[in-house]
């Protein structure tokens, strides 16, 4: 299985994503932002970081970079695409995902572990995660407050995949690190093949990092690509 990680100028989690994909057992390679065609790939990751210095808006310029035409075609063919942090912001800016990420309600750069519930429709990145599982992984962002004109409609359509919760699974205001509407931490598209989230599964793939829960997303997409009906984690 071949996973491509897009490198924009200012990406800083590209190596984390390549490592995470390799730990899960995939072949992983980098794709430069100036490429207009993708190599043969089974899944794509848009990594975290500060692409183009977050100029204008987080992810705005990355979303219009040369490689994104090929990313859009890959997504429209049903290829699994995962956007993490700045990658999520970029996917929203392209319109592949609904809504937008705005300045944290706290106005602070929030850098800490959060708990996430997994819900909504199955995606390649989450379908193998056991129901009811609460995941722990870090966030590190200043622009992570998810905004949507009608967040309830996202829930009704099963597009909310991750919510910020407390350790017991409650989506409380105290568990919401950035003021996201509905405690939304990650969403998918109606087809379910494009997923974006602000927390970093790539930084939680080994016990030495404090949590290996993030590895479940990478294990899950490899299971989905192989057509294996197994549970991970």
């Amino acid at each position, binding site marked *: 299985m071949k996973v491509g990680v897009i490198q924009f100028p200012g990406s800083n989690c590209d190596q984390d994503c390549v490592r995470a994909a390799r730990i899960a057992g995939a072949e992983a390679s980098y794709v430069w932002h100036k490429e207009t065609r993708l190599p043969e790939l089974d899944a794509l990751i848009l990594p975290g970081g500060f692409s183009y210095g977050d100029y*204008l*808006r987080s992810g*705005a*310029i990355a979303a*219009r970079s040369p490689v994104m035409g090929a990313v859009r075609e890959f997504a429209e063919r049903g290829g699994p695409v995962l956007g993490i942090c700045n990658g999520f912001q970029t996917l*929203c*800016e392209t319109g592949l995902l*609904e*809504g*937008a990420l*705005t*300045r*944290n*309600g*706290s*106005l602070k750069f929030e850098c800490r572990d959060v708990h996430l519930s997994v819900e909504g429709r199955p995606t390649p990145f989450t379908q193998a995660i056991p129901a009811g599982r609460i995941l722990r992984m870090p966030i590190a962002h200043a622009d992570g*407050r998810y*905004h*949507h*004109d009608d967040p309830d409609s996202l829930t009704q359509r099963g597009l909310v995949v991750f919510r910020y919760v407390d350790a017991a699974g409650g989506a409380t205001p105290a568990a919401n690190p950035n*003021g996201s509407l509905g405690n939304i931490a990650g969403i998918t598209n109606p087809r379910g093949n494009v997923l974006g989230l602000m927390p970093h599964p790539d930084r939680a793939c080994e016990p030495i990092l404090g949590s290996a829960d993030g590895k479940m997303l990478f294990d899950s997409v490899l299971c989905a690509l192989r057509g294996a009906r197994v549970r991970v984690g």
Partner: protein
Amino acid sequence: MKARIYVTLKKAVLDPQGKAVARSLQQLGFAEVEDVRIGKYIELTLRAASAEAARAHIENMCQKLLANTVIEDYRIEVEA
């Protein structure tokens, strides 16, 4: 030709920066301040046959890049 573009957050979108600045102004004694909203101001120099043509092109630029219409409104002024 020169143009000015004002990009502002839509009314329904929370502006924590504006709120922090409003609080700071109030602490400085400007008790009359009720609300602050912060946006972006863009100066653009471009070639265009007419102000109307310039405005149409800038409208396109705003839709494609300069504003995120999910969360932002924009207003264009073209210098005659």
